């Protein structure tokens, strides 16, 4: 017994080190392993407050750009409004509000990140404003991410620029589906993988969110096709997508709540359960 105590006392620093290393390694591996598994995130009062203060200063320096972006968005929305009677002129952006079962919460990015392989950004609305995990986040130009963690007044959002990000998307003109991912290389481009070879794709075609997504409404713009090539392993098309959003400068964003999401998930679970037995 005496020897055990002696051993512990002699190696107390090593034991403490191994304990702390174990805790932090567990946190790291856990955060990489699956969706919504970050135990430590910037969705909390302290870091939220700090980033809010930084953002308040930053905003003054970019007031002109912000105003121009908002005016541009207004012009686009006005254009849709004026053209609603004209059936030949299909609006480029279908508004989520029109569809009835989607709610929209306005918010602002207070901390953006685009330099690493798993990027998250922080917004200044949390569950007090009705934001819940797995809600979609769009800007005036298109999809930017999906809510990951929430606290009282802040939330972290998994960005399109994250190797863990996956989204059902389709080619607008012929409705062929694929999965939108990011390969970690360029902040201006994402990849649409697993597109069937029989799909006719052309450079410049628009990519929008698919109807399969339970998070986003259908037809929210994502980007345009920049390059088409065939994946050698799977023999499917991989499309290089030029994003409409400049992910390195995000300002005002909108959080979309799909009110039918729980119902759809419940229904799908009930349907698939008997088949597995």
């Amino acid at each position, binding site marked *: 017994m005496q020897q055990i105590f002696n051993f512990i006392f002699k190696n107390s*620093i090593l034991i403490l080190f191994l304990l702390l290393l174990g805790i932090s390694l*567990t946190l790291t591996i*856990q955060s990489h392993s699956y969706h919504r598994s*970050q135990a430590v995130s910037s969705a909390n009062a302290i870091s939220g407050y700090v980033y809010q203060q930084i953002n308040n200063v930053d905003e003054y320096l970019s007031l002109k750009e912000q105003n121009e972006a908002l005016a541009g968005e207004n012009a686009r929305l006005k254009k849709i409004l004026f053209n609603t009677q004209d059936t030949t002129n299909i609006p480029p952006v279908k508004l989520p509000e029109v569809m009835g079962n989607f709610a929209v919460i306005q918010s602002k990015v207070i901390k953006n990140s685009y*330099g690493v*392989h798993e990027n998250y950004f922080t917004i200044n609305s949390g569950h007090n404003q009705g934001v819940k995990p797995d809600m979609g986040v769009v800007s005036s130009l298109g999809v930017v991410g999906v809510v990951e963690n929430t606290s009282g007044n802040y939330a972290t959002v998994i960005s399109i620029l994250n190797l863990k990000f996956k989204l059902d998307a389709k080619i607008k003109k012929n409705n062929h589906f694929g999965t939108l991912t990011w390969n*970690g290389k360029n902040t201006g481009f994402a990849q649409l993988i697993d597109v069937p070879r029989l799909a006719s794709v052309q450079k410049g075609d628009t990519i929008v969110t698919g109807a399969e997504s339970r998070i986003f409404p259908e037809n929210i713009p994502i980007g345009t096709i920049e390059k088409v090539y065939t994946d050698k392993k799977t023999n499917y098309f991989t499309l290089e997508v030029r994003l409409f959003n400049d992910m390195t400068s995000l300002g005002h964003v909108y959080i979309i709540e799909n009110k039918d999401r729980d119902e759809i998930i419940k229904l799908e679970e009930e349907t698939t359960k008997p088949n597995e037995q």
Partner: protein
Amino acid sequence: MSSSVIVNIFRFIFLLLLQVVVFSRFDLFGFLNPYPYILFILLYPVNGNKAGLLISSFLLGLTMDMFLNSGGSHAVACVTLAYLRPTFFKFSFGISYEYQTVKINDRLSPERFSFILISVVTHHFILYLLEIFRFNLILDVLIRTLLTTIFTLIICIIIIYLIKPGKQ
């Protein structure tokens, strides 16, 4: 003794804030950020409490993870650096470093430079290895480690020169 505790607490908060408010927002070429907050671990008193250094390094790393959404990679890198620090001291300053009065916070000599260099490389390599966490991107880990090390080293030396207690 108590004054050194207060100095260290102040240094902890000051370097953390400086890192979050200024250095984590550099994004040079879109991905380069220096991490001079590890100066806290390097400048911790040589004969100070070892358990205190380990625990405060863990908290420092964890706070950085909280701010940067990096899971736990900063915590792992900081704890490892804190544990290996005596080894690096021995390597840079010789076996009897504890009996000399080693002061990092002084004029830059080859010993001090090599100590800072080894520490920064170790920290950054572990950090990027765990942050990227994919073996097919190992080249990316090495490139980022190399470039960020240069950047951090320059910033660290500038900070050391700025906070050096003036003698003249």
